[in-house]
């Protein structure tokens, strides 16, 4: 995890990772295969999904598992993403463990149902291969799809390597089904950049995954003959607000569940997970905050940045909902300048969505850190080493008061 012996940290309290589980097999998997592999090991009762680039490979792999009898899942090959999420909601209400996957316009077509899934407290797990939303139509990576869904009531986890997406899908099952949480979980992985990237993945033994997730824990099932349930009644001004308030509480309970599940997964897999990963932050004068594959790219560049005599660090945010506000303050308020990298634009807002969160966290804590924003990589535009070096160089100038914070764009022709 560290470069040249430099210090790293994570949001989890356990700092030393235990040995990996016996029987762990190292496989070369692409991101989409890793999601399908995790789904195979989870072996959910129902999967309802619809193909869309670049998620397609997930449903193709999973279809093969169904065809070969490697899973016992009822696989519902629906006619749209809207129906995919609707069927997932029906299946979850009928007591099954439910999973699906999508991208971009597919996620957009589900929009209406995302909010309904969260309000029905249906712990559906959905892998999202991040792709730019139309229009213009584009199939490559940015975060405009999942960022738009950030207020839908789903827990949102970003992955920055193939192994992370595998690990996150497995943990998502436990997190969503946790007592008092019972919320749907989105696991993001960058379209093509991660979904079609071949990497080493330490795949856990099937039995380990099964014992980690345990049996499904339905709380209310439509198929409970003794207790007929009414799911989804009309809920007007006299109760709707209280129900929404309960969703806010559920998201707060999720904070602890995410930490606990991350720790326990660390014990099982030897891989620790918290809300974030910190790299070279302890003595950092300047830092970058990023999500997804770009965070991995930056992590790889930190030694070079340090060689340039820039005291630069990285905060890789794993959870976007619930957002680790306290962690951001704790890890960044001692720095002089922070750059937040957003792979989506929020038109008319004072910066991208991640920037708004970080800037709000530090501002409300009274930190003196200067916070600046870079929008990059829309529609799959590459982010290069030069771009990242420029960000750190900008930060050192900003730390010395020679450059003003603001929203800038990396790699766009202007």
């Amino acid at each position: 995890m560290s470069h040249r012996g430099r210090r790293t940290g994570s949001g989890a309290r356990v700092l030393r990772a235990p040995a990996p589980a016996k029987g762990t097999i190292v496989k070369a998997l692409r991101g989409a295969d890793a999601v399908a592999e995790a789904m195979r090991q989870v072996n959910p009762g129902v999967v309802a999904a619809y193909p869309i680039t670049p998620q397609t490979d997930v449903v193709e792999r999973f279809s093969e598992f169904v065809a070969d009898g490697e899973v016992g899942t009822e696989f519902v090959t629906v006619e749209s993403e809207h129906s995919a999420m609707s069927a997932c909601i029906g299946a979850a209400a009928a007591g099954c463990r439910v999973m699906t996957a999508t991208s971009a316009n597919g996620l957009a077509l589900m929009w209406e149902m995302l909010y309904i899934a969260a309000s029905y407290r249906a712990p559906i797990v959905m892998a999202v291969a991040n792709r730019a939303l139309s229009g213009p139509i584009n199939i490559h990576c940015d975060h405009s799809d999942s960022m738009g869904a950030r207020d839908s009531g789903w827990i949102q986890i970003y992955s920055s390597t193939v192994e992370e997406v595998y690990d996150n899908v497995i943990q998502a099952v436990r997190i969503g089904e946790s007592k008092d949480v019972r919320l749907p979980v989105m696991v993001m992985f960058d379209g093509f950049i991660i979904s079609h990237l071949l990497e080493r993945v330490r795949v856990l033994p099937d039995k380990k995954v099964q014992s980690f997730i345990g049996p499904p824990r339905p709380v209310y099932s439509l198929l409970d003959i003794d207790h007929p349930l009414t799911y989804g009644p009309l809920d007007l001004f006299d109760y709707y607000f209280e129900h929404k308030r309960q969703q806010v509480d559920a998201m707060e309970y999720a904070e602890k569940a995410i930490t606990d599940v991350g720790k326990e997964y660390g014990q099982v897999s030897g891989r620790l997970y918290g809300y974030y990963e910190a790299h070279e932050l302890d003595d950092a004068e300047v830092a970058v905050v990023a999500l997804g594959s770009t965070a991995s790219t930056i992590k790889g560049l930190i030694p070079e940045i340090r060689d340039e005599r820039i005291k630069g660090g990285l905060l890789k945010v794993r959870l976007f909902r619930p957002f680790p506000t306290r962690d951001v303050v704790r890890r960044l308020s001692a720095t002089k300048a922070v750059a937040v990298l957003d792979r989506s634009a929020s038109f008319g807002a004072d910066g991208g969505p991640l920037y708004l969160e970080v800037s709000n966290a530090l501002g409300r804590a009274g930190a003196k850190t200067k916070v600046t924003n870079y929008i990059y990589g829309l529609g799959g535009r590459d982010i290069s080493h030069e771009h990242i070096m420029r960000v750190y160089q900008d930060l050192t100038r900003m730390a010395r008061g020679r450059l003003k914070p603001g929203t800038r764009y990396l790699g766009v022709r202007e």
Partner: protein
Amino acid sequence: MANLKELATREELLTGGHRLCAGCAASIIVRQILLSSKYPLVVSSATGCLEVATTIYPYTAWKTAWIHSAFENVAATISGVEAAYTYQRRTGTLDQEFRFIAFAGDGGTYDIGIQALSGALERGHQFLYVCYDNQAYMNTGIQRSSATPAGAWTTTCPPGKQSRGKRQYRKNLTEVVAAHRIPYAAQASPSHWKDLVTKIEKALEVEGPAFMNIIAPCPRGWRHETDETIEIARLAVESRFWPLFEVEEGRWRLNYRPRRPIPVVDWLRRQGRFKHLFTEGCESMLDEIQARVDREWEDLVSRCAADKERAAGGESRTGEGGAEQ
């Protein structure tokens, strides 16, 4: 078939106290359907009159398991419930047998829900889809749908200086559904309860999807008195505007042939939504409507006759006559 006496002893699964309008056909239809099932049910409703009026948190009129999620997706929602059921039965975690019924109005079926319906029919889930067809978006205040008959007033096709109400003829959805070649599709009316109950019982026994389109007069939207609901439904059948037929494994069968069919104007005249058609200058439109009803009836009859003939040629079974009331 269960007789009236037997039906009367069964427990009502849609209780009183719901807030559907007086004279609403939807609740009459739903009660007849729920009484007709000898199996425990999971019911799903699309957003619409039936949904909003039978549930308002913290109350529910449903004494059976029930789920609503949105407007256009009741077929997809019930697909998910049925998939979860199939999984649990297959893996031995559930012993209890269930049946699954989706209810939606014509808006949720003919229009916004047709994609989800078509998908679920093609996939072959074990469920019965019931459209209570009140021929407009009644829940939002009587707007036109593709089920609204030509000439009708609605709030989005009002008659005016340049308009005689809805210009287009209604979509024949039962035909569209039958084209999916599902095991069972039928058209029914609450006025012909024996036919309705028989069809429900059949629909709940077939392997795979079943569909029923049931005419559901709406006193508010059709502009008739609240005690005329069943009579208006009967006139729709007697005028041959709403034929009672079924399509079983692709075989068409007419279930009822009015002995003395009434002209369609006798059905139209009873409803305020058509009153502008009975003013000077609208005669040709009434003729056109009658011609359309006649043409659709003839198409249906010849289709049923052809299937009857084919069946008689092959395996000497009773066709249309056997099931007529």
